[in-house]
């Protein structure tokens, strides 16, 4: 009894003194959700617009994460597992939480400007939005298989609803249904994988999986060992859940349909935020294999190669499929698939370098640059992809169309929007001096380095390079429509307010340039994040 009491006491101590304090941003978001729901209930507060509450909450959460990150970097705070090791509080997680909060702010601002949820629906919409973000933040800090599943589901379930938010639209409801069915299926598979993995290793804690696995596998168990096979299968099934979130080939099918059906704002949110969370999770899951025996490393190495091949396939598939599209949202959906492919290459290089037999000081440096590249890419991707979707949304409000051919000659009427779009597209293509280029360079560089470990990485690198050219074809079509084609007679006039809208567009799009011209500071920070994650320093 006493022991249990002590245990409970320690648990409470740990929770209240450490964990909750570090968990404040998530709590703030939860509080905001509650506040918004309260507004609905209390007639007195009906007048308070939900978006401002949401913005306030998002800002607070962002500021808090920013402080946490600053303190982590400054050494005032230290990385520590929280909630008995269910979550991990470290630079990596905090960075992603900060990232997500920032993104949340930008998305809310965008929806305010484009007015996608009407007054009636606003509290519901922002509740879902904040809820999904909450789930993603948990994904980013997940340190336990339970949290993995929980995070994925918490991020997914509100997303399903958001996709179907345009209630009267056939496409929207279809998209939502597809998303929910596909998502639920993928989640089921993932959960089954988690159950097997947790059961076989006897633990749900990610950092322990490596050790536990090596206990099982090291006893001379070869490839034909059923347990090894089961472990690989289970890992694959877990990865399927993540692949669904990342829309990795061949688990990407939901993506174009859902993006086309959903509002551009939602699509933008899904394309960036859920990817960020999923990548954070993927890295953590991949690193869970570390610390094990050589045999475990070998499994992880094979998984890394497999991920690399999938990455190449994803990038290629995404780019090629985008060719024939006429709907810009659908095209951008394929584009996000392709970009997931590029980012996945970084994860692949990370796994390959981390788990190669010839590891050394140099390979550590490379793994650092893998994660650095991934984070950098995500960071740039935030701006360039959100920028593209935001402009699609803003233009849609004017011309009521998302077909590329309706963009013809737009540059003459709204030069600023088109300029922003051009910046985003150049960045998406990966042309210097845009941020997309530097991000791609870092990733390619790490893949290049990984080629010395396994020949298959040459294939991955080649695919990456050639896809840069492939991508040009369809991105340029948007530019071509906007700049080179004449505006047809009788087309709708486009007008927008320069002050909030124009400023917002510049605010999102100019960083794509800034991140390419002055990458040093960011690259350093990201490198620091990576090194804490990988080496604990």
């Amino acid at each position, binding site marked *: 009894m006493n022991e249990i009491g002590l245990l409970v006491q320690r648990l409470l101590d740990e929770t209240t003194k450490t964990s909750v304090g570090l968990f404040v941003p998530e709590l703030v978001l939860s509080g905001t959700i509650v506040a918004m729901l309260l507004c609905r209930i209390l007639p007195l507060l009906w007048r308070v617009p939900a978006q401002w509450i949401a913005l306030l909450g998002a800002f607070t959460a962002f500021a808090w994460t920013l402080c946490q990150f600053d303190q982590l970097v400054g050494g005032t705070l230290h990385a520590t597992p929280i909630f008995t090791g269910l979550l991990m509080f470290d630079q990596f997680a905090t960075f992603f939480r900060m990232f997500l909060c920032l993104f949340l702010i930008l998305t809310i601002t965008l929806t305010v400007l484009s007015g996608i949820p009407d007054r009636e629906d606003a509290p519901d919409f922002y509740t879902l939005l904040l809820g999904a973000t909450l789930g993603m933040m948990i994904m980013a800090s997940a340190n336990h298989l339970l949290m993995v599943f929980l995070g994925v589901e918490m991020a997914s379930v509100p997303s399903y609803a958001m996709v179907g938010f345009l209630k009267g639209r056939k496409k929207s409801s279809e998209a939502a249904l597809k998303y929910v069915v596909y998502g639920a299926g993928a989640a089921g598979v993932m959960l089954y994988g988690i159950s097997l993995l947790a059961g076989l290793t006897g633990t749900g804690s990610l950092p322990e999986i490596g050790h536990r696995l090596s206990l099982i596998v090291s006893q001379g168990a070869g490839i034909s060992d059923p347990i090894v096979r089961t472990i690989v299968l289970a890992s694959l099934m877990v990865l399927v859940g993540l692949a669904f979130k990342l829309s990795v080939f061949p688990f990407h099918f939901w993506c174009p349909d859902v993006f086309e059906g959903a509002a551009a704002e939602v699509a933008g949110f899904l394309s960036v935020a859920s990817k960020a969370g999923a990548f954070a999770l993927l890295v953590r899951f991949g690193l869970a294999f570390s610390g094990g025996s050589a045999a475990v490393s070998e499994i992880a190495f094979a998984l890394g190669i497999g991920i690399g091949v999938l990455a190449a396939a994803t990038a290629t598939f995404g780019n090629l499929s985008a060719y024939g599209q006429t709907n810009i949202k659908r095209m951008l959906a394929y584009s996000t698939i392709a970009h997931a492919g590029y980012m996945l290459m970084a994860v692949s290089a990370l796994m390959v370098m981390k788990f190669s037999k010839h590891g050394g000081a140099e390979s550590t440096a490379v793994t650092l640059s893998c994660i650095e590249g991934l984070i950098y890419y995500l960071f740039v991707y935030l701006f360039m992809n959100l920028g593209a979707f935001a402009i699609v949304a803003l233009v849609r409000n004017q011309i009521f169309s998302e077909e590329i051919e309706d963009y013809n000659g737009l540059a003459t009427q709204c030069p600023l929007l088109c300029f922003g779009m051009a910046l985003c597209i150049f960045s998406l293509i990966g042309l210097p001096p845009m941020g997309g280029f*530097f991000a791609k360079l870092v990733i390619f560089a790490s893949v290049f380095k990984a080629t010395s470990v396994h020949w298959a990485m040459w294939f991955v*690198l080649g695919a990456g390079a050639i896809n840069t*050219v492939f991508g*040009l*074809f369809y991105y340029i079509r948007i530019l071509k429509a906007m700049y*080179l084609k004449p505006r047809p007679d009788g087309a709708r006039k486009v007008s927008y307010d320069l002050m909030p809208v124009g400023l917002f567009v510049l605010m999102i799009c100019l960083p794509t340039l800034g991140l390419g011209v002055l990458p*040093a500071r960011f690259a350093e920070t990201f490198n620091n994040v990576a090194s804490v994650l990988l080496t604990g320093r």
Partner: protein
Amino acid sequence: MFTAETLTSWIIFVPTIFAFFLVFFEKKAVEAMRVFALAGTVVTFFLSLALIGQFTVGDGGMQGKISVPWIASWNINYQLGYDGISLTLVVLSAFVFLVSMLASWGIEKHVKGYLILFLILETGVMGVFFALDFFLFYVFWEVMLLPMYFLIGVWGGPRREYAAIKFFLYTLAGGVLMLIALLMYYFGSATPEAMAITGHSGGSFDLLKLAEMAQRGDIFSPGLQVAGFILLFIGFAIKVPTFPFHTWLPDAHVEAPTPISMILAGVLLKLGGYGIIRIAFPLCPYGAQVAAYALVAIGVISIIYGAFAALAQTDFKRMVAYSSVSHMGYVLLGIAVWKISEVTGVAEGRDYWLMGMNGAMFQMIAHGVSSPGMFFMVGVIYDRVHHRDLNQFGGLSGLMPNYSGMAAVIFFAGLGLPGLCGFIGEVFVVLSAWNYSKTLAIVSAGGVILTAGYILWALQRVYLGPAYKGPHPEAITPMTSREQAIGWLLIVPCFVLGVYPNFVFNYTNDSLTKLVDTLDSGYQNTPKPNSVQTTQK
């Protein structure tokens, strides 16, 4: 303020500064904007002249070097500098931009956008010539791509979209190859041996240091050098362009507006040659030597093939475009006539190679003057009668005597008439070729007949004869004073360079001598694959 160290940056960024201020001009103030942009090019040109003043003749090395850390974690520096090779090309470019700006008065559509892009293009070009950091070089290289795409695509002729995309695609594909080479060298220079040269751990993008490593021979393996050379060469050959990478050129030239054609021919093609001299050769002396025969052959094929293709054209501008292919073939030929002794690996007839290099440089400068001139002359008549069918001209010498006289001089310069600039480059290159290969030298000498053929035939069809045969005869008016000024600006250097070639050689010879010696020793120091085998036996 204007020391040699800062002048380089000024020259690069003055056009951008002017472009930035252009943003604030009233849309209607077309004339003011033109004058302002012209002022930008004039200032740049005078700054480049000031750079000549700072130049120390007789020093073959880099001068006015400046190096500021940019992305420290990658050892990327903002590193600029110039030697005789870049200096001459910078002055040429500044000049061509100035002249093209004058020729841009006829642009009526979206003047502001045009001028801004035009000036940004100049920044990109200057940056490429000054960059001594491979990464920086690459960034500027791609920066040029964007404005060029729009300049062709928005302000071009009927098939401008096709031409613009073709141009974009070819160049981007070349850029991707270059990017891979860039990574190869970055990681190739991360060896402990290389640290003695770089003075820091990790790879290097410093072109000078990379060249130094290549000269040492033992750092970059022969395999790396060959692979790197092929990648780099294709990347640059697309820009030159040489057979068989030339098909973007006729389309781009024909569709681009006149001033942009002038820049394409006068400046952008030179970047390819410059890249080969500055990067492809110094970084992979072994690869360059192994590929020398192929290069010379490609050069010769370009000469002959371009001339034949020009002979068959009926479109005046297309003919001029193909003449560029032919003329730029000499550049490649001159650069590559590197004959070695089979036994010792020492350059045989080094002076002839040096002469070829100088000839190639001169050919670039000369072509940079004559080819814009030719395009301008085509543009003058196109502006009047709006067609370019060679068979529908005639009799212009009677209708526009001054114009015809100027055109004749420019075309004779292209034909390689002594006393005009085209002669020196062509003849020097051809004279140097015999030392390398008799057969190829003879074939290249055959180019003189074909060149005379297509130019004279075109002159006859356009300028000679009794009467103009095509549409809009009423529109044929004498040259305006602005056009005459441009004509004179282009003609005078034709004469000056043709009579006093030391104008160029004074600056290039020392640098090229150094380059040739560096390459020579670089090749000798590189362990040859077969000699390694023999020692093993």
